[in-house]
């Protein structure tokens, strides 16, 4: 079974802090994704990485950056956290073959005070 592990289930930070969210997958997947999920807005793609050191902006990249130094690990960085970044953050990975589905971690619920 695919396992995607997010480092924290719940996180509370203050505005202006630099925040790191970590995600690790154990299935040698090439592609990794960061989403945020908000009521009424569904899943929105922030960034994705199709391979090590490769990244591409998703639909809502503003205020975020990412890092993929190793194949199994994909980090999301909030450069200067703001209250409108309070959300559920979900990491996913997939094998880079046509039509392959994504597999998700259990999410990090981040609160910015």
């Amino acid at each position, binding site marked *: 079974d695919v396992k995607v592990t997010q480092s924290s289930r719940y996180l509370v930070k203050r505005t202006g802090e630099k925040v790191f969210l970590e995600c690790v997958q154990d299935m040698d997947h090439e592609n990794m994704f960061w989403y945020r999920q908000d009521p009424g807005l*569904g*899943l929105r793609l922030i960034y994705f990485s199709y391979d090590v050191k490769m990244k591409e902006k998703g639909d809502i990249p503003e205020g975020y950056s990412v890092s993929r130094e190793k194949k199994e690990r994909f980090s999301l960085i909030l450069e200067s956290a703001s209250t409108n970044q309070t959300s559920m953050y979900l990491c996913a990975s997939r094998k880079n073959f046509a039509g392959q*589905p994504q597999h*998700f971690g259990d999410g990090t619920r981040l609160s910015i005070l």
Partner: protein
Amino acid sequence: QKEVEQDPGPLSVPEGAIVSLNCTYSNSAFQYFMWYRQYSRKGPELLMYTYSSGNKEDGRFTAQVDKSSKYISLFIRDSQPSDSATYLCATLNAGNNRKLIWGLGTSLAVNP
């Protein structure tokens, strides 16, 4: 218009009922179709995955795709309280098959 439309519900049914969850999509280039189930405070888990038009069955779950009308459905037979969750449909474009296009999800409650 969103590329994938899904009625958010909430949908409430008695235990044992047959549940029908539906999505419509606008782009005929969408070729792969998925249903995910998401329990409260958990990540989405892949439930069903189909490529072609027609039906795919897995236990109490049946996924149906009608490409001519751009309509996808998930049927749950003999629904159980443990099926209470949010169900998300998603699709992939054959030409850009890394990014999933998501519905907003339908919240389902199965009452004992």
